[in-house]
């Protein structure tokens, strides 16, 4: 009986170690999630291309971009605006108040705030159909 218990205990060690590792990983993940949540309280992000996403959810996930120009569905105080694409090409970012019209060539550009006032955010990529995303941080 004692021997059997011993085997049970030995067999239980890997499970115990796995449980311990899981607790550690989940703890660290929760800490990171909390940090993201804290940032989100002051600064939300939203993907506006190729499809409009939910606030603070998958802001920089690429999809099929069929248009060359996209813009946000509404106005807000913009803290940042960014585009990322798979094919390097001419890229533009701008706000509807025409503050910080930015352009370049590469696979991504990101710009800072819109200088006050509520604006639309725009992104443009000249390669035509390709994969990519545009998102903005706003408050």
């Amino acid at each position, binding site marked *: 009986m004692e021997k059997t218990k011993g085997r049970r205990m030995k067999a239980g*060690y890997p499970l*115990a170690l796995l449980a311990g*590792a899981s607790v550690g990983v989940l703890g660290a993940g929760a800490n990171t999630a909390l940090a993201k949540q804290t940032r989100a309280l002051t600064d939300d992000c939203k993907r506006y291309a190729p499809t409009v996403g939910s606030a603070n959810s998958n802001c920089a996930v690429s999809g099929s971009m069929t248009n060359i120009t996209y813009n946000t569905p509404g106005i807000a105080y913009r803290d940042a605006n960014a585009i990322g694409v798979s094919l*390097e090409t*001419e890229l533009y970012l701008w706000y509807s108040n025409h503050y910080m019209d930015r352009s370049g060539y*590469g696979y*991504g550009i990101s710009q800072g705030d819109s200088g006050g006032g509520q604006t639309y955010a725009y992104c443009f990529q000249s390669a035509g159909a390709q994969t990519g995303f545009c998102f903005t941080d706003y408050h």
Partner: protein
Amino acid sequence: MKKHRKRWLAGGGIAVVAVVAYLTTAWAIAAPKDDGGIPSNLPVAALPVAQLDAATVTQMESLKMGVSSAAVSQARLVGATSLGSLYALPDSKGGVCLFLDDTIACGNPNTNAKKLVALFADDSSGNLIGGVITAPGVQSVTVGDGVKTAHATPVPGGYIVDASAGLSALRHKLTLATG
């Protein structure tokens, strides 16, 4: 007693593994990416590493291009423009980024069709201001705004475009060519 000791040992093991796993995961999430430096064959890589002020470092890291503190520590000063200093720094994809006036652009001159990465901003008059870094062997860069073209001014490690070029940032008709 033996039974209790084994339980204590098992419990202690779980706690140790949990702490180690927590620290390892937290480090993996927080650790800056190893950006490996600017590709060594690019002319801009030969420039000395720049000394950046704290405000510039904060701006570079806050922009949404995943620029790490390791990358910022490898920044090179490409040149001065009327909107401030133009810097080049490595990115996490093996390419290079340009930073100017709270904006960053990234690409890979070694692999893209035009053999360059470019970044332009508008000044208060709508002039196109910025710069270009190129792959080895490029002898000239021509920039256009849809109406006018101009040669970018060569500087050690890249090219600069300033208001004197007379290009507009507001037409959104950027053209770039290397020679």
